[in-house]
Structures are given as structure tokens and as C-alpha cells.
């Protein structure tokens, strides 16, 4: 899927669980399986942030994970886009917990939010499409 010439690679995604309830993570994996099959557009999960263009973050960012979130973010090569998956990324049902360091956007810059608890696979794909548009813009600007 090449919308413009600006972004001419397949979109690779790294998934980071920051203490989520698993609901979002499972939906992220479900998104990648044959029913929705985004791999036909070149979107796939990779095992290292260094290979990734998009960082998918799920969960409310527990205190133990703050440092990991920052480090994973720093390891990614530019241009990069961060997607926050799920409502609890900004607290959600866990809003009054003592062990959260979120919301995510106070820790790393977030470009696309996908709300829902958990969001449906379709919503996640829609978020990725928005991420592609953003990456194209960044690439076009030479960032």
C-alpha cells in the first residue's frame, strides 16, 4: 500500500505492554491474524524496537515500566510514530491507582490515540492508517 512516494517502506510495528489487562494486547494480536490480515499491506509485528516504525503502547504505564517505555522509544529510529491503544492509557478504570505513572503522553509523545476498552481490531487498523499518514508527512518533511 503506497499512498505517496514519501513513505516507501512497509510499516513495521513494535508492541509494548506497559501493564495492561491483556485485553488490548490480545486485540492487537487478533488484528494481525488472517481475519483482518494487515500483513497484506506490509504491516507486521517485529521483535525489536530498532526495526520498527510504529510503537504500539497498551496499558496504563505502571511505575516499573516508565523507564522501559522511554528506552524503547529512544531505541526506535526516526521517523517514528507512537500509537496509544486503549482507554486505560490515560487511566481509564484504573484512574485512582497508586502504582501508575501515566498518562502515556506525559512520558513520551503520542501521535495517535485509539480509544476503547479494548478497541476493536478495525479501530486499531484505522489508527495504523492514521499513523501512516503521519509518517508520510514526517518523511516528506525530511525528519
Amino acid at each position, binding site marked *: 500500500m503506497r499512498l505517496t512516494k514519501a513513505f516507501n517502506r512497509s510499516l513495521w510495528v513494535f*508492541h*509494548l*505492554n*506497559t*501493564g*495492561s*489487562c*491483556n*485485553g*488490548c*494486547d*490480545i*486485540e492487537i*494480536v*487478533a488484528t494481525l*491474524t*488472517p*481475519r483482518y490480515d494487515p500483513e497484506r499491506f506490509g504491516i507486521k*509485528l*517485529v*521483535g*525489536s524496537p530498532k526495526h520498527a516504525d510504529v510503537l504500539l503502547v497498551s*496499558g*496504563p504505564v*505502571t511505575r*516499573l*515500566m516508565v523507564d*522501559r517505555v522511554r*528506552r*524503547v522509544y529512544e531505541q526506535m529510529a526516526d521517523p517514528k510514530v507512537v500509537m496509544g491503544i486503549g482507554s*486505560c492509557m490515560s487511566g*481509564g*478504570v*484504573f484512574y*485512582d*491507582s*497508586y*502504582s*501508575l505513572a501515566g498518562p502515556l503522553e506525559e512520558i513520551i509523545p503520542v501521535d495517535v490515540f485509539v480509544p476503547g*476498552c*479494548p478497541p*476493536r481490531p478495525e479501530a486499531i487498523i484505522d489508527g495504523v492508517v492514521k499513523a501512516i499518514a503521519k509518517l508520510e508527512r514526517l518523511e516528506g518533511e525530511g525528519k
Partner: protein
Amino acid sequence: MSENKKIGSTYSIPIGPVHPALKEPILFTFKMNGELVEEVDFAPGECHRGIEWMGMRRNPVQIVHLTDRICGICGVSHSLAFARAVEQIAEIEVPERAHYVRTIIAEYERLQSHLLWAGVAAHELGFDTLFFLAWRVREESMDVIEYLTGNRVNYGIVQVGGVRRDFTEDQFPRIEASLKYYEDVAGKLLNLFLEDRTIQMRCKNTGVMSEKEALELCTVGPTARASGLAMDVRYDSPYAAYGDLDFTPVLPHQYLGLTNGDVYDRIVVRLLEVVQSVDLIRQCLENMPSGEVLWEKKYPKILAACKKATGEAVGRIEAPRGECLHYVRMDGNTNPQCWKVKASTYSNQMSWLNMLKGEQIADIPIVVASIDPCMSCTDRVAVVHGERTDILTKADLHRLSVEKTRRLAQWS
């Protein structure tokens, strides 16, 4: 990316807390001797969100939605266990029909959870075709769950005193169609998972746990049953509608004729439980009584009943991963005075220490996955000790596992 610290002839490899073999954060430290694992230690806690603490500041009607979010895969199990505990304290009588609705949803949850696990196990072995197939098959149960409850994950259907949504007659054909689908596909799945040479080579005699060890380590659920322990809360102390249903715990010797307690047996048990769940749902549909599904429709009344209640109770139920236990104490306030969750992985995770000893690095992913761990269920209290080294082995680990499969395939 991995860094090996030399300690004499052994060295240690830290794995995690971010690594692709597990979808959740946990830190393992392996002390290795050559290719063999000598010692294992692990430090969970990254998923700790203080759920119990939050729960003690909310009322039971709010907490059922929090219990859903303890774990996105077995949410119903947690809300059911919690609701059962509160119902016992407040002496709330759950309508008969609600028991059946709860049972059907709980069994659908088991279906999707076991298929999810089967896919992950195949993925850990580098058998991605099977991973995709299992998840494709799983989508059918997700569809039915969404059709019945309105959401794919975190259904929020259980309420203190019953369920929030009834199933109607015209929904039964869709349920029946999905049961038929699973019956048709079950034989294929069993064949693909159990007769496949690659899977047999990788899983037989890997991560063995004897019946005695399983008992001593207090394992629960499919992990215990795969080692030959006939224990299943649904059977041992029936709750919801299980008392009316006809079934026995699934044990590997029923299929294989003997019990090894290895990873292969854990696959057998989970796949047979998929078949069993289909049968249980069908029995529920056939015997479903009519009537109300909620003890009291008005939430303030439920809350008032909870407020009057004092005492303590334990709700035990069989989650897809094993026994899940909620302890609740009420003291005349709307919020519980104490709430303690013991998830199944909490009981099962100690078995890693024994299972992994003497295995190769390449076997770590499948053995770790074989108990179907769920850290977000387990991280109730964060136990953090020792020096933390954060080195991500990430894809390396998965690669090693895939390579071993290839190697074995070439040799034989």
C-alpha cells in the same frame, strides 16, 4: 543484544521484562551451563496496577467492571468469582437462568482462551501457519461472545446477583451454529496439533512435571491436569450451573493412554477441553430454565443489600488457567473492607522453576508458555528484589526456538 555474564563455568541470561515470547512484562534470570538451564528465577510485578486497593475504595457494582479488567482473557472468571463471594456474604439468591447464562459465557471464554493459547504455543515453536489457523478458528467464539454480550473482550456481563443481559431464543441458532463449527473443526485441530511430527519432537518429554511435583507445587487447572491430577473446581465444588451438567475433568491419559506431564500433554488437555466446552454449552442450551436473570434490577437496591451485609466469603471458580479465588470481606460499608485475588497463574508459576531445569535455551519459550501464564492476573503484589539488569533478548529467543525446530526436522 544479549549479554552473558560469566560466573565460573555458568553464565546468566536475563530475559525481559520486554520480550516477544511473552506478551506481558516479566523478568526472568536463567543461570546457564552451556546450553542447559541450571537455575531459573523470575521477578514479576510490572503489571501491578493496585487493583485490590482501588477495589476497596469502590462499591461492588463498580468493582465487577474492575474485575473484568484484571485480565482481558479471563475477565468473566474474575467477575464471577468476585460476584460469588459478594453474593454469599449478602445472601443474594441468583436466579436459576442467570447461572446458565454465566456458565455459557464462562465456557465460551474457555474456548477462546484455549484456542488463543494453542496459537501462541504453535507460534513459540515457529509453526506460524498453525498459529494463524488457531486464531482464525478462535474468531468464531469472539463473534458469538460479541453477539451475546456486546463486546469482544471485557464483556461486563456478570453483575452481583445475576447477569446484566439475557440470552433470547432467537440467539440460540447462532450459538448452535458456532458449536457445530467447533465440532467440525475439532478433529482437524486435534490432528494438526497432536499428530504433527514437529510438535511431537519439540513437546514430548519437554518441560516435564510429575504428578507428585504438580501436587507439591500446588499447580491448578490444565497445568495440574496434564500431570495427571484430576482436579477441576467445576467438578469438585460445582458453582453456577455446573452441578447440573454431565462431565468429568479432562486428563491426558483419556486420549493418550498414559500421562507424561510434558508440554505435549498440556496441549492435549487444552484441546480436549475445547471439545468439552462445546458439549457443556450445548447441555446448558438444552436445559436452560426460564425466568429472571438478575436478582434485583435496580442497582441502588443491590448496593443497599451489600451495605447491610457483614462477613467474609471466598468465591472459587475454574478459570481457563485453573482455580481463581477471590476473598472478600464486607463490614457494613458499600465498599469491601478487604479484597484479595488469587489468580491461577499465581499458583502455577512456581512450576517453571522445576520444568525449566535441564532444558535447553531454545525450549524456554514453549515451556514458559505451556502453563499459559497471565501476568496481569497475577501481579497483585509486586515482589521485587535483587539487582535488575535489563537486557532484551527479544527476537533472539524466538529465533533460537525456530531454529531448533528446523534442526530437529532435518535430523529425523
